[in-house]
């Protein structure tokens, strides 16, 4: 088969383009679609891709790495700290109990303890990619099932460190001349130095995140070149992943850490929206690679055994998870999603199995079968979830029950505030003074920096981009405030919001009447001319200083604003008719000039006899006549 890069790319992409929409149409998630695409183009069906599948897998694993970085971005350290109990209670018990049970079974069937340990630890881990992707797709991340799944996956990622550390130790015990050199570039150093280097690397990520990455991103943001920022974002992720691989840690865990560190930075939303497409595509590639790597030849030779192992692994894992869910009082329907969702063997097993083979803990045949089991279990997961959704949950009938909101994950803000200049910051401060937290976006990276130093939570980014608004929570928000001065930016923002987020209530700052007309034409319901209120307030004070009574002036001012806005709507109707417009403007100016005296001499006394004894006196006299 042709092996050129373009041809390969075309094969992968067209398989994805055909299979994923098909899968979605039938009601299966995108994960299953990608897996099917992989099976179709894999060596056992159409044979478009063969040996290089494994290389692709390594490359595509980067999608998982990127996903964890993005997840880290959404998890601020304080939120992570709040989750600590769930991570240890649910996550740790899953890893320990599952490992123990598998170890027991394997050991009792007469497999050596080394092999048993290597296999059982690998089988205990679940697939971050499949589980999180499905949960996100079904919007279940914030449910009890989603949060507990996440806690388990996080604990498993942490567990990778000791597992990778233990494997060479068992191997050393097994064969004295084990090839440990493959593990990582630092493996040649003595144990204590390795440990030191591992800790050093983690600390380095934290320090880099704080003092190198943020300033670098700021520098890049200043160039206002979007592609350069995307490059910077990729550089951050690749850099961390590389560092972690150097010291033999899971790159996914490392980038997750990096993400958490950057979660508090102003670039959070911009990073998210820039990396999202890369993540999606790479994850898709990863699933395709998993699909393609299923060794159907081996499976057909040992069909019974492979399927029996796969099913029992799925069964044992979901039973353990279900039990843990039960102990932690997760409701039945949530528990089913939780237990079945995490029942597969994770992508990490591919790594540990081949690692264990290199270390001569496992022989080739065992590894092949275990890899087939892993890939099969991953393929079964979306099917299991589909089965759960259609048959189990539908019959339990608690699916639609309202989830009680938990404290662990913060709900997203109801208000998004775009533009944090003097105007915007005043709006923001007033809202904050009353306990309303808005998600604040600004496109000036210097100002964002300064405001963050002052303790405001402001994010950098171009608000006229739909993907950025999406990351900032536009789907969950109900109001979008635009405190942006520039009318063109406002214009673009309004048309984008009306197109992509029609549910958002728009409240827009206008510089003057002309802007207000534009926005009125776009059917923006709430327009705020920036100078109107303070100008009228100043006028009021002048009148008061000249001897008018304050309360009377207050009422006059309010009516003035009311009439002014009514006049504006009239003007907006004739805006495009130049002649009529000029006439109306003239009329409006006249009207405005007359307004105060009109108010004072006619309208006010005509319509408002409040506290006015003169009219009563006049009236009584007329009655007598």
């Amino acid at each position, binding site marked *: 088969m042709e092996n050129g890069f373009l041809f390969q790319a075309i094969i992968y992409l067209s398989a994805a383009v055909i299979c994923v929409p098909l899968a979605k149409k039938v009601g299966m998630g995108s994960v299953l679609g990608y897996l099917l695409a992989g099976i179709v183009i894999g060596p056992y069906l159409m044979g478009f891709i063969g040996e290089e599948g494994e290389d692709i897998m390594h490359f595509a694993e980067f999608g998982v790495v990127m996903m964890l970085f993005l997840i880290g971005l959404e998890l601020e350290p304080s939120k992570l700290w709040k989750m600590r109990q769930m991570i240890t209670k649910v996550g740790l018990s899953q890893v320990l109990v599952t490992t123990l049970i598998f170890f027991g079974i394997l050991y009792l069937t007469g497999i050596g303890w080394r092999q048993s340990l290597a296999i059982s630890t690998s089988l205990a881990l679940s697939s971050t990619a499949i589980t999180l992707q499905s949960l996100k797709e079904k919007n279940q991340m914030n449910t009890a099932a989603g949060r507990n799944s996440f806690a388990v996956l996080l604990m498993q990622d942490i567990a990778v460190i000791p597992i990778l550390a233990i494997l060479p130790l068992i191997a050393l015990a097994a064969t004295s001349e084990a090839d440990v050199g493959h593990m990582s570039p630092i493996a040649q150093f003595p144990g204590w130095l390795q440990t030191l280097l591992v800790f050093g690397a983690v600390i380095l990520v934290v320090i880099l995140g704080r003092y190198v990455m943020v300033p670098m991103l700021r520098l890049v943001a200043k160039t206002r070149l979007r592609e350069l920022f995307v490059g910077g974002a990729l550089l951050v992720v690749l850099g961390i992943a590389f560092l972690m691989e150097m010291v033999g840690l899971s790159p996914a865990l490392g980038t997750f850490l990096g993400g958490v560190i950057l979660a508090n930075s102003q670039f959070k939303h911009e990073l998210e929206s820039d990396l999202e497409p890369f993540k999606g595509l790479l994850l898709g590639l990863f699933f395709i690679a998993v699909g393609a790597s299923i060794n159907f030849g081996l499976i057909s030779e040992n069909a019974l055994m492979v399927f029996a192992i796969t099913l029992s692994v799925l069964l044992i894992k979901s039973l353990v998870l279900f039990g843990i869910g039960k102990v932690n009082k997760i409701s039945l329907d949530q528990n089913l999603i939780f237990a079945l969702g995490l029942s597969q063997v994770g992508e990490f097993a591919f790594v540990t199995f081949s690692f264990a083979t290199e270390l001569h803990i496992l022989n080739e045949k065992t590894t092949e079968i275990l890899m087939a089991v892993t890939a099969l279990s991953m393929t079964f997961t979306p099917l299991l979830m589909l089965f759960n959704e259609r048959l189990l949950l539908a019959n339990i009938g608690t699916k639609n029950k309202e989830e009680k909101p938990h404290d662990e994950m913060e709900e997203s803000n109801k208000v998004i505030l775009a533009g944090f200049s003097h105007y915007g910051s005043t709006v923001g401060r007033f809202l904050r003074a009353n306990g309303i937290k808005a998600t604040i976006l600004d496109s000036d990276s210097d100002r964002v920096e300064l405001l963050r130093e002052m303790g405001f939570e402001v994010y950098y980014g171009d608000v006229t981009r739909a993907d950025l608004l999406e990351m900032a929570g536009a789907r969950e928000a109900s109001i979008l405030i635009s405190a942006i001065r520039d009318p063109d930016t406002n214009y673009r923002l309004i048309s984008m919001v009306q197109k992509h987020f029609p549910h958002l209530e728009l409240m827009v700052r206008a510089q003057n009447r002309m802007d207000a007309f534009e926005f009125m034409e776009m059917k923006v319901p709430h327009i705020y001319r920036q100078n109107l209120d303070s100008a009228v307030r100043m006028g009021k004070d002048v009148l008061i200083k000249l001897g008018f009574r304050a309360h009377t002036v*207050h009422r006059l001012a309010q009516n003035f604003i009311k009439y002014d806005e009514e006049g504006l709507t009239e003007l907006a109707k004739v805006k495009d008719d130049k002649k009529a417009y000029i006439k109306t403007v003239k009329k409006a100016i006249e009207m405005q000039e007359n307004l105060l005296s009109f108010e004072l001499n006619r309208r006010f006394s005509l*319509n408002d*006899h*409040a*506290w006015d004894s003169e009219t009563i006196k006049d*009236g009584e006299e007329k009655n007598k006549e």
Partner: protein
Amino acid sequence: MKNILVLMAHPKLEHSKVIARLMASINGLENIEITDLYERYPDFNIDVQHEQEMLISADIVILMHPLYWYSAPPLMKQWIDLVLEYNWAYGHKGIYLKGKYLFNAISTGGSIDAYSTKGHHGFPIKEFLLPFKQTARLCNMVYLPPFHIAGTHNITSKKLQQEINDFKALILHLRDNPNYYKLEQLPFLNDFKQ
């Protein structure tokens, strides 16, 4: 069917225990219009013309408010000051409210006993409501006895629910049975029983 206009004044409705529920119990009923005065006029700048139009189409006007210092909250007084204009509501040409019915639906922290000659407040509740009664009379309206939920500081939830149910029944009765003679004779509209 009669039209009922409820003018509700509570400066901090979000902390209200009685008035808010009283209002909620009749919210959305057919032919019943509720004006939440503090929500509509946060700056006390009452739209006189609009309020007068609302009054014209109403047959029964209810002033719903907690009793503060033996009177209504200030925006209710502002409403009376501004809307009930000379030669509109009263005076020679002030004929627009003639024959309509008016009453107060009030809540008080003090009990019925506190509002008696021997009680803490020294006078029965009806004497404190005298200004409203005379306001109605000046506008040629018929003033009905008040609906009064007393002792709201210590009211049991069961008793409160009972009062609210009674109020809703009263409103429906007023709307659907336009013979109010019996009601006029009652000491309180709370004593209304179909």
